[in-house]
């Protein structure tokens, strides 16, 4: 029997009469890379927001490791080991890349309420932060202002920050969006490495990336599950072909 780290049942989200996610039954197998694809507006980001509790579902349940997490708060989900990235790059622009990663590492130290301690106590995290920076090729930028970095580097930093928390399940929302070919290759490799000891659920438009990385693919269309399977199965599905022909992401 397959071991599902994440499972949704009849997950539905309605915005004022408009159904963005409709009766979705999604199962993510532990240790796999699972891709969620579909045309723009299909509801992929909404699914992520539901899974991480940034949105409350209208109906349906979410189970993580067999535990019902439907009513939990976003920070609780993160504390359970589910860390997400955002479609619109989520970094702390005024901090340096090292401080960005350090803030993630700091959360696991448990001393974050200590307002009477010097921030020098955080120097102990720098080695680990620098290793993560090196892993995404940002060593040279460790002390620059994050907000001024190129887009691709911000995305790389975001992934490094997510990895800093050593999530059990990592949710990536279009990690390669808006990147040049070189950056795409680097991020793809990074995701592959990150997947060695965790589960990844990713939204991705770049079908090359999907075909190289994902073991399983779920296709969404107008909030409904259209098809599911391996890349070969899904890419031969006539409904999927039609959905994709009709959109800009052929």
């Amino acid at each position, binding site marked *: 029997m397959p071991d599902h780290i994440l499972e949704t049942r009849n997950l539905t989200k309605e915005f004022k009469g408009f159904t963005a996610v409709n009766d979705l039954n999604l199962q993510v197998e532990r240790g796999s890379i699972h891709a969620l694809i579909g045309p723009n507006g299909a509801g992929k980001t909404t699914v992520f927001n539901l899974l*991480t509790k*940034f949105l409350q579902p209208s109906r349906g349940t979410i189970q993580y490791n067999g535990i019902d997490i439907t009513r939990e*708060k*976003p*920070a609780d989900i*993160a*504390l359970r080991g589910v*860390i*997400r990235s*955002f479609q619109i790059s*989520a*970094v*702390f*622009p*005024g*901090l340096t890349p090292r*401080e960005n990663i*350090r*803030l*993630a590492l*700091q*959360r696991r*130290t448990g*001393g*974050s*309420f*200590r*307002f*009477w*301690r*010097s*921030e020098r*106590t*955080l120097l102990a995290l720098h080695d680990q932060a620098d290793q993560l920076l090196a892993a995404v090729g940002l060593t040279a930028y460790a002390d620059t202002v994050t907000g001024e970095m190129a887009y691709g580097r911000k995305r790389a930093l975001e992934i490094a*920050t997510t990895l800093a*928390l050593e999530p059990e399940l990592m949710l990536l929302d279009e990690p390669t969006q808006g990147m040049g070919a070189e950056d795409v290759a680097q991020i793809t490799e990074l995701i592959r490495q990150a997947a060695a000891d965790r589960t990844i659920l990713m939204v991705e438009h770049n079908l090359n990336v999907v075909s190289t990385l994902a073991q399983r693919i779920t296709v969404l269309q107008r909030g409904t599950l259209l098809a599911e399977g391996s890349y070969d199965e899904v890419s031969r599905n006539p409904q999927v072909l039609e959905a994709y022909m009709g959109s800009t992401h052929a």
Partner: protein
Amino acid sequence: MKARYWVCLFIIGCLAPFLIYPVFVMQLLCFALFACSFNLLLGYTGLLSFGHAAFFGSAAYLAGYLMTVAGLTPELAILAGTVCAGLLGYLFGTLAIKRQGIYFAMITLALAQIVYFIALKADFTGGEDGLQDIPRGKLFGLINLETTYRIGHKSLELNLYFFIFILFCLAFWLIHRTIHSPFGQVLKGIRENEQRAVSLGYRVERFKLLAFVISASLTGTAGAMKALVLQLASLTDVSWHTSGEVILMTLLGGLGTVLGPSVGAITVVTLQEKLSAAGSWVTVIIGAIFVVCVLAFRRGFVGELGRLLKKSL
């Protein structure tokens, strides 16, 4: 900032009462602390409270009352004012923190108006008159804070001054430490990108609440200090004007800068003092100055200076 600048400022603080009327300097210190505490919230956490006078005023009333009626020593009265403001801050915070932006400001304002109403109606606050002639008493029951020293032809309240000055330094240090602590790092993260902070597993409401309580407590310290210095606690201290004034001081001096709020407080209090002959026009004049400054120096005095010098002040 480098250590030598701090030493310079400390020396200036020690010399100030010999050069300027000490009670006025102490008044500046009280409002500077008020603005610094406020800045911890607005400048470093991104929360706009429009009800900080409630903490300032209630601590002033409580400290004044305890010194007048219960004969408490000044340090205990100030401690009581601080704790009371902290508890009130916890209450305000719990009720307001879930709201964002303008709603947060409105809830704090509404709660502060309740406190104002209580101050107006209750007996122990002295109603319209407020608490007057609050005795300064003896620090730790030993050092008489009323004592004045004759230097030249002036008589200076040096005991009181150095007590207030040291208290200010300690509170200022605590704020500075809070900003540069692991906790302060998280606040910075929340201000920069709240959603990301949440998704990293920070329960941001708790962090905001703690920041709110620290800010309210130290605002209470400032209010109690003020009651001791001016020997007065009045409705002005809890009124929404005062809540507005501290916003003005902070913005004028430079939001999110270390020295800005103090500079802003000194500017506003000095202007009020110098212009007091102009009567009710003071508000208009200060308002006009504020508008000009906001247009000319958007980051406040210290913020703009810091930008010119490429330093964080």
